[in-house]
């Protein structure tokens, strides 16, 4: 039987990709001028948080 548990890291990474993907789509539509120097640190911060929370979750379970 497969065991499954909620993954905080997947949730954070998912939300992050939705936001970044939407930013690129808005940029392509000409609605918003995308600044790469915003996306890059946001990506690193989000993935860092996702990794830390994921690791913390695993050690608790």
């Amino acid at each position, binding site marked *: *039987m*497969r065991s*499954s*548990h*909620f*993954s*905080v*890291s*997947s*949730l954070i*990474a*998912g*939300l*992050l*990709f*939705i*936001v*970044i*993907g*939407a930013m*690129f*789509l808005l*940029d*392509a539509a000409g609605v918003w001028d*995308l600044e*790469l120097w915003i*996306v*890059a640190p946001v*990506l690193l911060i989000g*993935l860092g948080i*996702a990794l830390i929370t*994921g690791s913390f979750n695993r050690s608790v379970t």
Partner: protein
Amino acid sequence: MTGRGPGTVEPVQPDSRRGFSATEVVLGMILLAVGIIWFLRSTDIVNMSWYVVFAAALVVIGLALVIGSVAGEQSGLISIGVILTAVLMLGSWMDLNFGGGVGDRTFAPASIEQVETSYETIAGTLRLDLSAIDFPEGETVIEAQVMAGRIQVIIPDDVALRVDWNVLAGDVEVLGQQRAGVVLDDSDASPGFDDASQRLILNLRVLAGQIEVYQ
């Protein structure tokens, strides 16, 4: 028929069925969508930018991760999302539109009417011979991009030139100046460019390879 007593324990059968994999389903959907869009672009039915396709794919991956988070960690999808974000950031920085064909291509327009505003190749050599062109007064802007390979541009002597170029990795030779390295981004102009009556501006982008401009 085998009889079992009340204390007999049923042998545990290994479950040979594979569980649902969100990573495989989403990856399959993305490959399917990319294949369909590529086909539609190749047959000129739809001309959707790859930039939009990749951005939409990133949103789909994000949604799949959020939905799939209740079933556990989806490290495969996270890796794909990171790669896709890197590709999009690169495309945005270099203003790439992920278009063009594969192979060596030569364009030698005979008149200004035959000159296109943009030339693209995914992989190979893109050779643009503008030596026969009598450029009009004012500014003429031409863009060219190659993902992997080389851009060669030959321009006539009687036009003032400015070359705005980006190279992620490779080397550049513009108006006799040579540079090599990674993440190169610069602009070179011929003397008296701003005051010239005929001005040609080349926007050249290469992800990996060479840019060569000769006058």
